[in-house]
């Protein structure tokens, strides 16, 4: 059996098992509200695993490993931001949220406000954040498939992205929160096992000497010691193309971009709707706290392992695999499939370092397989199993590939659930029906919303599939930190906060993040010279905002708007704040709806 067949078999097994689990979870659902919170009876340990499964996305596994493999230390910055962010959730958000809300982020933000405007805002930002996050996962799925199954046909790749979308719709509509939770728990187990296996094998190769691993990675990367320090991807010294000197303005922008990314990562987690709703699946605040502690343990260990995965890929996987059909021979020369040395003009032979000297015609023959590094981890697995063409390599590639698929499926299900819940509970039940919808009606709407959101995500993901998934996720984090976190923190801790403050905080942060993104160098070419850019639209020039990540501006803007809205409005809600404060700290009347 070859790797492709084995991958397909393993993956289909995972799909079959999870479908059974989801179907059974769906059948055991008693109340309509179980769709949202899975019965709110999971233990802290179970939910901690599910949170880990919900959080450690394709961005973590594929994106971070890929970023480290290509750019070295800078990829590790993602790992740190993604982990430290959990302290915001632990110290400020998880317990009060569990105590004072029921199903959605909107429950807490709208607790003491006018329901309709605040819930509309909360639902809008929930859906926007979730869609961005969904894109990242589905792009990862596409990249993975083309490696595992050797699919290069774009139509086939799109078909796979659509398949992932359909599966997530099925999970959510049939299994609701309970089914999704079980899928995430299974996935968390598989991912931890897979990552541990790879880490041990990598370290084994280097006799468990991390210094040697790093040394080999920097050597094989061709970038020497620079590979082990920050600066190859973020905060680079930007050169002026004509003078060859460092451009101070562009360099500063690049360094600020790194700060911006750091801010988005650390403040984004506690504003991610699909993470927030996981706190509702346990009965008490104490269990919510325990969930976060279990999650921090799991996630922390996993991110430490990304060091071994990423640098292992850099050290062990040949850079030639970046180009389809070409390898290097024993003399280090670049050869094609037949073993013939690739000639160009009068030169006798080429190594990879000479690629830049190839003629334009010769370059066209080199097809980059993975320009964004998204498949470095599966490639590492293949190498550790024995390499391309060996049974061991095929098995390892298949196992790790299937785990990555499982990872993607669990996360996309969580995202679809969060956005469809918010649509049904915030928008439909509380805004359109003004709180008069029956739970059955709500859940029916949620399922329809899940289908609609899934379909939208499929089409968008097909459109943006050349972007690095860790990067796409960092954008979702920036939007969550700008649009959601200010409103959540203000409402829990600031007595004066009111309806206008909440609405301005959410729309202000959300709009700032999205608008700055549109005018950033990831959408079109920058107006300022010498900035790094690989935009979606290479022929357009309207990027007046110099940073790739909007967080540095949009997050403070969200907080500012929340403050401004509050102080310019006379609305006061002292009595409701008393209720919110007592409920959020004690859990009195937990799970009961707020009477308005």
């Amino acid at each position: 059996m070859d790797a492709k067949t084995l991958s397909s078999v393993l993956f289909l097994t995972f799909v079959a098992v999870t479908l059974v689990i989801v179907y059974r979870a769906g059948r055991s659902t008693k109340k309509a509200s179980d769709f949202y919170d899975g019965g709110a009876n999971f233990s802290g340990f179970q939910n901690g695993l599910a949170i880990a499964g919900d959080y450690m996305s394709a961005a973590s596994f594929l994106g971070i490993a890929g970023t480290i493999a290509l750019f070295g230390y800078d990829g590790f910055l993602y790992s740190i931001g993604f982990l430290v962010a959990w302290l915001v959730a632990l110290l400020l958000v998880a317990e009060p949220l569990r105590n004072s809300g029921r199903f959605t982020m909107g429950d807490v933000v709208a607790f003491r406000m006018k329901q309709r405007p605040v819930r509309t805002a909360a639902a809008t930002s929930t859906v926007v954040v979730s869609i961005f996050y969904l894109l990242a996962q589905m792009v990862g799925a596409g990249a993975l498939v083309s490696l595992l199954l050797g699919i290069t046909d774009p139509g086939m790749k799109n078909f796979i992205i659509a398949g992932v979308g359909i599966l997530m719709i099925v999970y959510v509509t049939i299994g609701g929160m309970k089914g999704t939770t079980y899928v995430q728990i299974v996935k968390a187990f598989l991912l931890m096992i897979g990552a541990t296996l790879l880490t041990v094998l990598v370290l084994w190769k280097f006799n468990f000497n991390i210094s040697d691993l790093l040394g080999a990675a920097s050597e094989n990367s061709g970038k020497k010691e620079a590979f082990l320090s920050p600066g190859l991807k973020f905060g680079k010294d930007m050169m002026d193309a004509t003078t060859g000197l460092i451009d101070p303005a562009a360099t500063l922008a690049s360094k600020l971009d790194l700060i911006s990314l750091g801010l988005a990562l650390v403040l984004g987690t506690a504003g991610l709707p699909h993470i927030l709703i996981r706190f509702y699946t346990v009965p008490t605040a104490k269990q919510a706290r325990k969930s976060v502690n279990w999650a921090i343990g799991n996630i922390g260990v996993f991110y430490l392992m990304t060091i071994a995965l990423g640098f292992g890929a850099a050290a062990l996987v040949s850079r030639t695999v970046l180009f389809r059909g070409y390898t290097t021979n024993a003399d280090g020369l670049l050869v094609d499939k037949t073993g013939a040395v690739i000639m160009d003009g009068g030169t006798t032979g080429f190594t990879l370092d000479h690629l830049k000297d190839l003629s334009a015609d010769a370059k066209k023959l080199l097809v980059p397989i993975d320009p964004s590094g998204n498949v470095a981890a599966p490639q590492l697995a293949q190498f550790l199993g024995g390499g391309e063409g060996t049974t061991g390599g095929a098995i390892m590639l298949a196992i790790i590939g299937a785990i990555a698929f499982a990872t993607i499926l669990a996360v996309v299900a969580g995202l679809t659930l969060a956005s469809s819940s918010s649509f049904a509970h915030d928008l439909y039940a509380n805004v359109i029906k003004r709180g008069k919808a029956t739970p059955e009606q709500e859940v029916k709407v949620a399922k329809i919303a899940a289908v609609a959101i899934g379909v939208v995500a499929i089409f968008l993901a097909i459109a943006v599939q050349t972007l690095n998934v860790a990067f796409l996720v960092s954008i979702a984090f920036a939007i969550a930190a700008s649009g959601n976190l200010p409103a959540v923190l203000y409402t829990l801790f600031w007595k004066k906060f009111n309806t206008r403050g909440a609405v301005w905080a959410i729309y202000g942060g959300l709009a700032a993040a999205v608008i700055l993104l549109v005018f950033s160098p990831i959408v079109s070419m920058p107006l300022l010279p010498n900035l790094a850019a690989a935009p979606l639209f290479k022929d357009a020039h309207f990027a007046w905002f110099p940073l790739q990540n909007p967080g540095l501006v949009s997050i403070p803007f969200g907080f500012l708007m929340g403050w401004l809205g509050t102080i310019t409005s006379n609305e006061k809600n002292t009595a409701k704040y008393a209720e919110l404060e007592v409920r959020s700290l004690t859990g009195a009347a937990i799970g009961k709806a707020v009477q308005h």
Partner: protein
Amino acid sequence: MSEQQHGVWEATQASTKFQNLRKSYRGFAFPLTVAFLVWYFLYVVLSAFAREWVATPVVGHINIAFVLGVLQFVTTFLIAWLYERHSSHKLDAPSDEIKHEVEKALGH
């Protein structure tokens, strides 16, 4: 919700017991939040602006950047553990007590 019930929340909020709980929670969580954010941004700013310094080797190929990065993991685990200890020793009991009193007063 009746006026009387609203009264329960406000009376509880004003009570010494609740104010102590609130102080004990905020007095622990807020300074710790500021501390880990400052520590994290110190790390990010050094990564952006002190390139040469963080590239200094410590042992073999392990440089200051790696040590600082791994220290972020260590402090995260440590803070999570400290908060768990504070909550379970100082916050859980009074919070449960107030919860029962409130629910009794509300007639739940």
